[in-house]
């Protein structure tokens, strides 16, 4: 019997959805599980940082990391895991490009903290900010990790070998990626594994209802539009991001009449996902008068960054709202 594949799983700023999808994918695949030896998985098993530190360098075959880099502790942990692992995989949208928490980069970190700790309604005492150091009732001094001024995707901190996209990646995507990894026939480094190389529209069942040239007079939003789930959403005026988003999820959202929000991220040739999305949305809007266009955009896309950078802002070319911090 060949030796087991040694795997480390770790989470950064994430919601736990990635773990759910990992468990969903392999919980009934005994042949895969019996091939894996888990050496680190804080969410489910009792390992500590020291356990990883004790391992020899490059002794972990694969480290699968999800979530974006938000705290100093994250930086430390991923650097440690990088040193101990042969292959590092960014799992899910947050690790790959920052994900939804990455939208915090539109604001200064102090604005974010004050929003969370002093503005939102709470039953606790308001305005108590996290302190890096504090003393407990027993007189013990404890340290809390510091928050970074911006959220970063994993590859901004360490070298990442492969990406598995999705929010979360579907179990099928994870299984496909595992198959690729276990086959020993590894694709070129830095590539996206487990997903398609083509746009989502290609695998969408509604694609056959999409005309050659989509033209819309109005951009609609889902909260006040009655959607016909049997027709391409673009034709109905909904900005579905299928044309610019990587396929591989089997069109889970458009299949049930909900637009693609772009969680599988950019295709291989994209430099900037959001700019590409702007390009195609502007192309299907069939208006030529400046005021009419402005009106359509204001009604249909009140928050462009939230629509087109929902998962990719920290990995975009500009990464943040540049007017933050000292420039505010």
């Amino acid at each position, binding site marked *: 019997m060949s030796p087991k594949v040694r795997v480390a799983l770790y989470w950064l700023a994430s919601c736990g959805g990635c773990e759910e999808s990992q468990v969903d994918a392999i919980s009934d695949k005994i042949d895969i599980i019996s091939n894996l030896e888990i050496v680190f998985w804080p969410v489910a098993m009792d390992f500590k940082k020291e356990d990883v530190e004790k391992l020899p360098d490059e002794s972990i075959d694969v480290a699968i990391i999800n979530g974006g880099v938000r705290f100093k502790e994250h930086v430390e942990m991923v650097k440690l895991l990088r040193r101990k692992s042969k292959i590092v995989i960014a799992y899910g949208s947050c690790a790959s490009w920052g994900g939804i928490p990455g939208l915090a980069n539109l604001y200064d970190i102090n604005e974010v903290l004050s929003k969370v700790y002093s503005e939102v309604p709470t039953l606790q005492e308001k305005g108590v900010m996290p302190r890096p150091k504090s003393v407990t009732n027993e007189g013990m001094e404890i340290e809390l990790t510091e928050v970074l001024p911006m959220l970063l995707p994993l590859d901004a901190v360490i070298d990442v070998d492969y990406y598995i996209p999705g929010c979360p990646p579907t179990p099928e995507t994870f299984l496909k990626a595992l198959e690729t990894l276990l086959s020993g026939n590894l694709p070129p480094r830095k590539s996206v594994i487990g997903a398609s190389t083509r746009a989502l529209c290609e695998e969408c069942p509604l694609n056959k209802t999409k005309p050659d040239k989509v033209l819309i007079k109005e951009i609609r939003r889902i909260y006040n539009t009655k959607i016909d789930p049997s027709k391409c959403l673009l034709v109905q005026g909904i900005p579905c991001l299928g044309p610019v988003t990587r396929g591989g999820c089997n069109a889970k959202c458009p299949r049930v009449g909900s637009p693609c929000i772009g969680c599988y991220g950019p295709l291989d040739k994209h430099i900037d996902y959001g700019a590409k999305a702007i390009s195609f949305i*502007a192309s299907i809007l069939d208006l030529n008068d400046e005021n009419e266009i402005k009106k359509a955009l204001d009604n249909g896309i009140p928050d462009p960054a939230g629509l087109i950078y929902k998962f990719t802002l920290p990995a975009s070319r500009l990464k943040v*709202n540049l007017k933050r911090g000292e420039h505010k």
Partner: protein
Amino acid sequence: MSSEYEPKVLMFTCNWCSYAAADLAGTSRMKTPHNIRIVRVMCSGRVDPQFIIEAFAQGADGVIVSGCHPGDCHYMEGNYKALRRMLLLRKLLGQLGIEPERLRLEWISASEARKFVEITTDTAEKLRKLGPLKPRLDYVRKIMEEVVK
């Protein structure tokens, strides 16, 4: 410091109208500001928003996209496409901390050398007042470098 600052402006001109206007301005010996760097494209509709975002990310202080007047596009409606893209892109740039005025869309026909000069001069002047983008980009770069260190 601010008196030394000279903005860098990237300008996309379409082959059929605006580039011809720039050419005419040159052959007519009109004076254009040295801040402008011209990239000739076949049509303003060819200008991918990625180019503009990339330009800002690499340190341009302003971008001008110019094409034929509405109705005059050599490819029928490329300039309308450019118009829609720029309007949406401008909204996005505002959210990313880049003043929407830094991205300008202008219609300049082949004979409007004077308009070409006026627009480029005016853009350079306005950007001088707005100040450089570089410190903002440097600030982000510094944060990232410190994190990786």
